[in-house]
């Protein structure tokens, strides 16, 4: 049926005057399970089917979407998209231009071993409750939480230039959190990451590999122990970030500023703009010489939340060098923005949350290449530093210069050894100064492709999953502790 809907939409759009049209038909199924203090919290399944039609008419964009999937419903939606484009043309300055792209007819599905929707719900609940029980076994844990999310996205992209691309993406994710309230403090620890755990394009085998129950007691004990830990000190320090925190640092201070729609002002009202104005391309020293970052949507990079075969305007997945030996070398682009800065081709990073949202530039897998250090050697090589693990809060300005992060837990590194626990660690800085202070990155053995499932952008807001490969890394002379300074 998806092919029929696409054909009806494109035919109607062309007949109404569109010079270009593309369609995303999407069938999305999601399962959410959460547990709290030994009981099931949320338990739901959702399915959503519809189409979004994007057209250029009169030199301007129009987009409309519907879940009324009769011939009449689809044709009305396509006609509305054209009418909207013609209204857009009232405030037009110049015609929309797209970087050229070939047409493709293809099918793709990410590999996975176990379909999470075929795993009995009671088995999934039991797994979460087992971890919950281990967390609550720790005296002082006041709140134990766990969650799983599974999402299957089947989609057809079709365009008036002849593309017909069918893709199926299976996402899985899970995590647990132990919280301890005592006195005037709330402390928490998460595994394997905060804000929902780890998420990938994968099947249920991802959840099984996390072995949540095996880590539950440890995070419970750490949440309680944080109450008696020393406060993280203030002042300039060497810091070592674990891979998950470095992944979020990449997301906020590299992934967002390289979005070309931000750079060109299209997000100025909401998500903001970027300090990475176009004259800085291939000139700005973004980071130290050992910093190499790529935007890689290809499966060979890993099965991350930013992995696909084609983006949502029919451009094949690519690997774009973003930072090369410290030099800023690339943006995330769409067909329209690539054309606007004179690039020959889109970087293939346009994605949509669902059928009823306009596709836009989103991060794919924005990853830092592994370095050469063994983790043990990095610690042994560090005389005085703070090791920070697992994000607790994150904030960055609307041009992506100034950031502040805090993590759930910190550890003192003294004389090459991991020492006492520190609570309330935080660090802040200016993006390029920070990345230029990086002097050690751990090797492939410590590199994980983390998933960030909750990246918000656009109006109407869209939530998208992004991937960030990272291994622990060391940064010198970073401002520490400003979040709790009096």
């Amino acid at each position, binding site marked *: 049926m998806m092919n029929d809907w696409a054909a009806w939409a494109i035919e109607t759009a062309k007949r109404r005057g569109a010079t270009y049209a593309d369609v995303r038909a999407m069938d999305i199924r999601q399962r959410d399970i959460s*547990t*709290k*203090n030994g*009981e*099931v*919290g*949320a*338990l*739901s*399944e*959702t*399915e*959503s*089917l519809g189409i979004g039609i994007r057209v250029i008419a009169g030199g*301007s964009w129009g*987009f*409309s*979407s519907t*879940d*009324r999937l*009769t011939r009449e419903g689809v044709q009305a*939606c396509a006609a509305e*998209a054209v009418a909207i484009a013609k*209204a*857009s043309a*009232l*405030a037009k*300055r110049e015609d929309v231009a797209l970087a050229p792209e070939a047409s493709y007819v293809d099918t793709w599905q990410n590999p996975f071993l176990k379909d999470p929707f075929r795993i009995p*719900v*009671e088995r999934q609940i039991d797994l979460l409750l087992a971890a919950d029980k281990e967390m609550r076994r720790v005296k002082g844990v006041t*709140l134990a939480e766990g969650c799983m999310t599974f999402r299957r996205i089947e989609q057809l992209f079709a365009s008036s230039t002849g593309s017909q691309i069918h893709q199926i993406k299976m996402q899985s994710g899970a995590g647990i959190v132990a*919280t301890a*309230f005592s006195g*005037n*403090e*709330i402390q928490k620890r998460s595994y394997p990451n905060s804000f929902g755990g780890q998420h990938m394009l994968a099947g249920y085998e991802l959840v099984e590999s996390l072995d949540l129950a095996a880590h539950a007691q440890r995070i419970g004990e750490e949440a309680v122990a944080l109450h008696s830990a020393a406060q993280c000190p203030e002042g300039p320090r060497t810091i070592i970030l674990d891979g998950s925190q470095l992944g979020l640092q990449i997301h906020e201070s590299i992934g967002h500023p390289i979005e070309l729609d931000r750079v060109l*002002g*299209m*997000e*100025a*009202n909401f998500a*903001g703009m970027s300090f990475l104005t176009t004259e800085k391309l291939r000139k700005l020293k973004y980071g130290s010489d050992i910093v190499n970052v790529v935007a890689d949507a290809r499966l060979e990079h890993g099965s991350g939340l930013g992995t696909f075969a084609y983006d949502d305007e029919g451009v094949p997945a690519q690997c774009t060098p973003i930072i090369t030996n410290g030099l800023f070398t690339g943006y995330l682009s769409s067909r329209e923005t690539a054309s606007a800065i004179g690039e020959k081709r889109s970087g293939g990073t346009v994605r949509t949350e669902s059928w*009823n949202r*306009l596709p836009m530039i989103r991060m794919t897998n924005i990853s830092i290449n592994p370095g050469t250090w063994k983790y043990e050697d990095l610690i042994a090589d560090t005389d005085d530093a703070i090791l920070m693990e697992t994000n*607790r*809060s*994150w*904030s*960055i*300005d*609307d041009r992506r*210069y*100034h950031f*502040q992060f*805090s993590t759930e837990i910190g550890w003192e590194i003294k004389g090459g050894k991991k020492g006492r626990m520190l609570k309330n660690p935080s660090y*802040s800085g*200016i993006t390029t100064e920070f990345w230029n202070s990086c002097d050690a990155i751990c090797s492939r053995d410590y590199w994980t492709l983390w998933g960030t499932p909750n990246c918000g952008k656009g109006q109407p807001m869209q939530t998208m999953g992004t991937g960030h490969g990272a291994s622990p890394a060391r940064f010198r002379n970073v401002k520490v502790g400003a*979040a*709790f*300074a009096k």
Partner: protein
Amino acid sequence: MKPAKARRRPRAPLDPLLDLDALAERIIKLSEADETEVEIHIGSDALTRFANNTIHQNVAEQTLGISVRAVVDGRTARSSTNKTDDESLRRVVASAAQLAHNQPKNPDLLPMLTRQKYQKVARFSGATSAANPQIRARAVTKVCRMADKAKQTAAGIFSSGSVHEVMANSKGLFARYEQTRAEFSVTILEENSSGWAKSTSYDIREIDPEALAESASQKAANSRNPHELDPGHYTAILESAAVLDLIGFLFYDFAGTAVLDKRSCLTGRLGKKLFGENITLWDDVYHPLQLGQPFDGEGVPRQKVLLIDHGVPRNLVYSRATAKKMKTKPTGHGFALPNEHGEAPMNLVWGGGDKTVGEMVASTERGVLVTRLWYIREVDPYNKILTGMTRDGTFLVENGRVTGGIRNFRFNQSVIDMLSNVEMLGPAVRSSGEESFDMVVPAMKVRNFHFSEVTKF
């Protein structure tokens, strides 16, 4: 011989606009669960987005959502779809029952409610519902031309939409709601400065895009060539949108479940003086400047609740299950079941004062005037320390006058301390930001606000 099921003539997908009530009844009849609840909404939304003085995105959507909750032997679960053919409706009903069946019994689960009485609210505007792309494009074109003329750059959105929803259950409860919503938000940029303004209403005729653009334009012009000011503790004059985005972070602390879970900053503090005497807060869905349904996710009628009384956190809000656990009565603030969060006040109305922002400025020897805030996150959940940035119009105030723009600050500020340091309050107005939901909130003059670092613009 074909099975009987295959002989049944399939119904065509229906147009749900025809009769949502009938669709709800039909779904309930399909269910064999002990109890069944259905929520259906149908929405139409459109948004015209502009940047660089031109429309660059222009979108519309028609959406339907059907959500079914089943109760089977003391267990409950939810399944949702947007498909209306017979097979899909049967599947969503069966899915909810099957999910419910496959879990442990829920000791906190209460029987579904019977029919309730709801206070009427009128929040549907024919003008908003009838707004079309041409109306929005014409308004945006005027704003873009204003910006062109002033050698400035405009970016923003103009949106309009409507939603109709019904909630019904097998015990006879039936609730119906309809609402429209319009929003105009504009950022005006110059080479090294910017200004912002935003307005929302159920009635599009109450929104004046040109006036909002003019206000943003003035802020951009007045903050031109910003100076870098040392970070530190300043008297801060926070316009209502900035106040909203900060104090919106308190909303879940007033949930009974948050206190039960010991993750509220009010744990152990209820009934004790926590904020200044001049701070009073209600949750009131019936306030004329508020929007939203007069019933909660289980169909309980919403009540007006006094949350802070002259600086003393006095009451929480409760879903039915939380109220039973805490030996009190539900207030009509529960989320749709099943969920782990319980409830929250979503219609905050803060007590205001009578000072204008101009009077706040005039009374300030040295301070910082803030238009809006950005990327606010919680640093310390019990002391309620928040971090974030100023954005789109931050000014130095000296000797009772705004003397120019300053580079944007990062703040690390306890909201509890902030609400103990409020020196002046403006009238409470309907405000809208980007970090919290719309509320009725005043501008505030706050002493000793902690701007901890400064950025590069």
